[in-house]
């Protein structure tokens, strides 16, 4: 179990006539990822979803808040003492083309972390090769074919599976998959998503799935939980299926409305929401962060900041003064 409370991150931009400018990337985010669970962060670029993923993987520091791994608050430990904990969280990069060292065979790529693992767990060196083959079989590729090859000899889908196998060498509790399928060919995407779902069930490993495409979040498990992030704040949170079917926050509705309609198979939702303006720098920080772009904002939204809660009889949590269900997602032609 990994939990976070009040995670805050401020990026300082240097330069400019007025000196340093502070850009809040995360504004007090709470989260919990259970063993074997599925949590998805969705949002546009600048929402803080990648920063949060990197903080959870121990690759980035935060300015306030607490991360607790297996009941141990990380702030109580020295940088060195934290390492074994963060090793239980493994990051799967977006780009399988740059995530693997091109001068190493897949065997070499897996061997190094497995040796470390063997040392940590008191296993003999002979365990390493067998384990490498076992992991590759687990991610659905033929070890005999892949082990002696270099990354450039593999397709994008295979490389991403190798990256996942490498992440598994550390017996992680949580895999952080940051846009893990966005660079994979469309016909192979579901294969990678099904693999993540399968690993959850077989290894009881939790998956934190970070994406801008909500539709893909459904495929890592129908028991998943969805966090919608906007400018560093969670604006809606609940069961993935519930939020997709019945979103109440206008930002979530905007995201869902933007998903292309497969004309011929689907009809557009009747109440699609289009933001009043595009995302840009310099949007005001006072009041609701989405107010300036929101088509439904009122005076209250401009001055007061809504907090995440269940206000207004909804199943999911949301941060909106005027939550309302709207049918924004496409409807199947046959339905």
């Amino acid at each position, binding site marked *: 179990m990994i939990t976070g409370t009040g995670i805050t991150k401020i990026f300082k931009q240097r330069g400019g006539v007025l000196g340093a400018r502070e850009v809040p990337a995360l504004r007090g985010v709470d989260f919990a990822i259970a063993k074997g669970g599925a949590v998805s962060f969705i949002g*546009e*670029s600048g929402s803080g979803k990648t920063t949060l993923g990197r903080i959870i993987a121990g690759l980035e520091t935060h300015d306030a808040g607490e991360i607790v791994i297996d009941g141990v608050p990380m702030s109580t430990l020295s940088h060195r003492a934290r390492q074994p904990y963060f090793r239980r969280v493994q990051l799967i990069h977006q780009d399988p083309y740059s995530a693997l060292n091109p001068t190493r065979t897949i065997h070499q790529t897996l061997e190094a972390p497995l040796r470390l693992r063997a040392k940590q767990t008191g296993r003999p060196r002979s365990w390493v090769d067998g384990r490498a083959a076992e992991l590759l079989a687990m991610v659905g590729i033929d070890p005999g074919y892949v082990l002696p090859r270099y990354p450039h000899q593999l*397709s*994008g*889908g*295979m490389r991403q599976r190798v990256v996942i196998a490498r992440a598994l060498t550390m017996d992680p509790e949580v895999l952080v998959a940051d846009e893990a399928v966005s660079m994979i*060919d*469309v*016909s*192979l*995407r*579901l*294969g990678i*998503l*099904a693999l993540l779902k399968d690993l959850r069930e077989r290894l009881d490993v939790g998956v934190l799935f970070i994406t*801008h*495409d*909500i*539709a*893909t979040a*459904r*495929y890592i498990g*129908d028991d998943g939980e969805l966090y919608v992030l906007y400018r560093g704040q969670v604006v809606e949170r609940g069961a993935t299926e519930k939020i*997709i079917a019945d979103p109440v926050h206008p930002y979530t509705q*905007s*995201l*869902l*409305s*933007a*998903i*292309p*309609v*497969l*004309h*011929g*198979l*689907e009809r557009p939702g009747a109440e699609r929401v*289009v*933001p009043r303006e*595009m*995302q*840009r720098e310099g949007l005001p920080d006072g009041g609701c962060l989405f107010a300036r772009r929101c088509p439904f904002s009122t005076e209250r939204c401009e001055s007061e900041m809504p907090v995440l809660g269940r206000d207004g009889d909804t199943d999911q949590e949301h941060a909106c003064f005027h939550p309302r269900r709207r049918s924004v*997602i*496409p*409807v*199947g*032609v046959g*339905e």
Partner: protein
Amino acid sequence: MTAHTAAPHLAAPGVRIRDLTVVYKTPAGELPAVRGVDLTLAPGTITGVVGESGSGKSTLALSLLNAVQPPGRIAAGSVEIDGLGDVVTLRGEDLRRARGRQVGYVFQAAQNSLNPLKTIGKQLLDLGRSHDVEDLRALVRDAKELLARMGMDGARVLDSYQHELSGGMRQRVGIMLALVLNAKVVVLDEPTTALDMITQATILRIIREVHEERALTTLVITHDVGAVAEVADSLAVMYGGRVVEHGPVTEVLGDARHPYTQGLIRAIPRLTGDLSLARALPGRPPTLGTLPAQGCVFRERCDRRMEVCETDEPMSVNRDGRTVACHATDRHLTLVKRKEFV
């Protein structure tokens, strides 16, 4: 607009690609990235070409500019554009002038195709000078109008460097540069890749609106069926260098006939529908080196493979404005024999 030396065509031009074959030189000999492609872009329509990596879609798009770079070359076929002739036969100055003026091109990752050292305005003036535009003031005015049309402050954008603009803004700058010389045929290669969902929706809406207002003939190349579905009138599906299916977008998506198109649609992550019905296509897309020398290019991943698929390349069958190249679909129709690749 009067300042431009070549008079813009008033009506949208049609584009006819006939039996186009583009080969790349490899250690294993010349291999076809695009093979025997017939595709007609009806005047004033948006055609979407969808395909995975290695399908030949970007090579096809470059052929419209006769811009296939060595080690690739157009080995056979023609690309006829109304008012311009066969682009494949154009050379030197004629070709350079046609690019930009008659055929506008928005490159893949247009976000990264701008010069980082020059302001957008400077790059616009460079473009104008290289095409002998006499009235550069009018050009700047047109550019500002186009940018304003796409929801941006033209003067500010022209004074900006590319790093000062967001991905969505750069994409719109790319579209402006492709249209400002009054090109009537516009090719957009992956116009929304790497953009956020809401930005993508905005860009797609802008493409559709500008296309209609300026009476363009537009070709959109993408790997994203959704993006094409939202914007195109007709949809061509490419696989292994062939157009395997082509027709009106609602019909191709609503009633796909080629097993690859059917599999691709089943593989798209969607917001609704039964999760258990969605599945990835088995196998993986072919590369130049793994393309079968004979028979159907898709047969290894196909669930309706027959004996004939091993040996004979399927012919394009045309019916009711829809084209399908598959042995397993309706075979009682007029057959158009594909020329064998030499």
